[in-house]
């Protein structure tokens, strides 16, 4: 919010407009950075890491910018509803996508630092794709 003092002799409405512009610009840039990450990262889990930025912080910044710009209590209530829906639903969708991705064997294990899930998954239910390499390093010692 450092751009809010750009209007030296501005009224409260001008200050709110500048705050709205800063929020909207930062939100849009965050979305662009996340899109670059989604295009360039190597597998589903790293792409999910990049995908959560515009889904939560970018969207919240843009909605806050819209609220600063419109300055109407009913509108701000509706925007809070949008933010609340997004905050509730986004982790559930990410959880299910990551779970399905890991259990389908689509995770690149050379990129994992810690893997605590492979040891506790039942191996006979794994759906390994035939075109991928066999899961030799997933077998437990016992």
């Amino acid at each position: 919010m450092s751009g809010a003092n750009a209007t030296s002799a501005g009224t409260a409405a001008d200050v709110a407009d500048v705050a709205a512009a800063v929020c909207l610009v930062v939100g849009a840039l965050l979305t662009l950075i996340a899109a670059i990450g989604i295009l360039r990262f190597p597998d589903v889990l790293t792409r999910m890491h990049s995908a959560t930025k515009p889904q939560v912080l970018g969207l919240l910044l843009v909605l806050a910018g819209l609220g600063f710009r419109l300055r109407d209590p009913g509108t701000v209530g509706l925007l809070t509803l949008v933010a609340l829906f997004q905050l509730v639903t986004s982790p559930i969708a990410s959880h299910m996508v990551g779970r399905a991705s890991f259990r389908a064997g689509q995770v690149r294990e050379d990129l994992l630092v810690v893997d605590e899930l492979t040891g506790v998954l039942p191996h006979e239910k794994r759906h390994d794709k035939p075109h991928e390499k066999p899961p030799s390093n997933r077998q437990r010692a016992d």
Partner: protein
Amino acid sequence: MNALLVSCVGVLGLAALLLVLRISLGPTMLDRVVALDVLVAVIICGLALEAAVHRHTTTLPILVVLSLLGFVGSVSVARFSPGSDDVEAEG
């Protein structure tokens, strides 16, 4: 002020282009689901930006609908993709 906001539309359009590229390239279905989820967030940001430029509240109900629609789409695709079986419940 408005020129700044219009340039944000260009940034969002570039982001949407990269996401469409990932949706068309994506090796697995879940890659496409992740990118589609972010594309819905980009569309919400674009609608909010348009409402901020013109100072109207006409498109605000669309934001509420879109924030729930992306969730339903990605959860249903992830649920019915191979590997998402609930092995504890099926045993």
